[in-house]
């Protein structure tokens, strides 16, 4: 075993001294500032040549203790903080929190608000997957896809800006519905986006998916069996890439997900390419959901009538939603007051990360990036 000082210092006396005694192995720090970790994730990996022998994540560089913060915020206020967890699916995080509060209040949501929420969720999911696609390609050394992905994502953020007032941390969901009605341009612009998206998705396949180098980098890398995926608590595209049915939208439908038609994407290989394909195909399903709903937004209120001060009854409330990364659980323990007594966010990234060591041990250093990329880690989501 190595001591803590050896872990922390990348520059031990010489590289030979930094190697573990007698084994020819060396410890290197990937992160907390590293181009492939997309944030402040710190992985301590033990390498034998190029082969990874051991991997240990060190977390906490961006831990803000959102759970503790929420304990002092009211049920209206705490929702905005959750945008800062998984900032790429901030709408969905807010949605989960709003749903939990509504479950506690036993509030009926107007159908218009439900449809708007689902539309926003799916747009967020596409935006998140777009960014992941670009970043994934960048992890493997292809820079150009990143810009193409951002071009399409920009259209979505523009739509969000117009309707929600912000581009990333929207805070559009409030208990009882949404903060304000959709912008008059919303439907037209979403339809324009879908046309644009469909015309550009072939380019993605030409540039990345079909590329022989990319396929060789991804296929057979970072294998995760279905049993392991369940045991590690993996959800979302990571679990579905291993053939585990885990789409909360199908299993425990919320809002109007039981009224729209879409498929749960399953791939059975369990390697990085399977996870990649799940996300690419999921974007198509999200487009399918949006197409069904965009012309059928029911008339009516966009917000249910709520009291000025919300008080949840004494009890425990747990809601699950499907974010772009997997299953987000919001667990509120209420003592009957205006603030939650204890709140726990079961974040998808945390569980997905725990499977990383299992997936990469024995493979090359380059495979670590290919695997980590397909886990789609958002570090604030892991640290919270």
């Amino acid at each position, binding site marked *: 075993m190595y001591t803590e000082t050896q872990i922390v210092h990348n520059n031990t006396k010489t590289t030979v001294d930094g190697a573990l005694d007698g084994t020819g192995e060396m410890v290197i720090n990937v992160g907390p500032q590293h181009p492939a970790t997309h944030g402040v994730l710190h992985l301590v990996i033990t390498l034998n040549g190029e082969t990874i022998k051991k991997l240990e994540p060190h977390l906490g560089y961006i831990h803000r203790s959102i759970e503790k913060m929420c304990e002092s915020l009211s049920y209206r*206020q705490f929702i*905005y903080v959750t945008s800062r967890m998984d900032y790429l699916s901030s709408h969905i995080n807010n949605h989960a929190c709003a749903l939990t509060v509504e479950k506690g209040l036993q509030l009926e949501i107007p159908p218009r608000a439900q449809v708007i929420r689902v539309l926003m969720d799916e747009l967020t999911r596409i935006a998140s997957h777009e960014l992941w696609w670009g970043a994934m390609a960048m992890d493997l050394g292809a820079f150009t896809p990143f810009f193409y992905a951002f071009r399409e994502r*920009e259209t979505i953020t523009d739509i969000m800006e117009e309707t929600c*007032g*912000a581009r990333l941390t929207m805070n559009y969901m409030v208990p009882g519905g949404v903060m304000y009605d959709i*912008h008059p341009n919303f439907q037209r612009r979403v339809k324009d986006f879908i046309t644009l998206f469909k015309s550009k998705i072939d380019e993605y396949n030409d540039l990345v998916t079909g*590329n022989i180098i990319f396929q060789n980098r991804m296929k057979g890398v970072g294998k995760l069996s279905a049993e392991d995926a369940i045991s590690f608590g993996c959800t979302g595209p990571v679990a579905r890439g291993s053939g585990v049915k885990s789409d909360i939208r199908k299993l425990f439908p919320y809002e109007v997900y039981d009224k729209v038609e879409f498929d749960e994407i399953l791939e059975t290989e369990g390697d990085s390419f399977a996870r990649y394909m799940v996300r690419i195909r999921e974007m198509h399903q999200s487009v399918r959901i949006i197409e069904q709903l965009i012309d059928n937004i029911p008339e009516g209120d966009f917000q249910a009538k709520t009291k000025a001060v919300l008080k949840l009854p004494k009890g425990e409330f747990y809601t699950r939603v499907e974010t772009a990364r997997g299953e987000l659980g919001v667990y509120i323990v209420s003592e009957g007051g205006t603030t939650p007594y204890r709140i726990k966010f079961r974040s998808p990234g945390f569980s997905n990360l725990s499977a990383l060591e299992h997936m990469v041990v024995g493979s090359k250093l380059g495979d670590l990036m290919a695997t980590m990329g397909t886990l789609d880690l958002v570090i604030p989501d892991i640290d919270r």
Partner: protein
Amino acid sequence: MFIKEYISDIYHAVKSLLTGMKTTGGYFIRPGEIITQQYPENRADLNLSERFRGEVVMIHDENNEHACTGCTACELACPNATIKIITKFDVSPDGKKKKALDTFVYHLELCTMCNLCVEACPTDAIKMAQNFEHSVYDRSKLTKKLNQPGSKIREGVE
């Protein structure tokens, strides 16, 4: 057949690489699709939607009157203690004391633009403005007083 597979491998590999090069090469010769926005120059035609949340401002009309009663609903709604309302007592001509706004202190450096204060305001006295260029050299400049000097509450706003 080993040789056949070997050759077809190479064929497909080269084909996939050329497809990728066609895509990037296509963009190289089509400069019309460049999406760069040259920010400081395009300031004039920047299109920010009217809902964009840049900072909290207080609405003043042409008579330098606002609608804030100093009820502190926004202060209570704010999750970050961004807003501090200082109230005073106005004495009306008939001798009645009435609570009124003295200073609306707004800490821009603490604000997360969540819009909860605007939602909470019963008299629509504040709104979100579209200004997003907040950088200043001194942090103390971010603490703002939102009610203009000499402004008073509009008649009839309770």
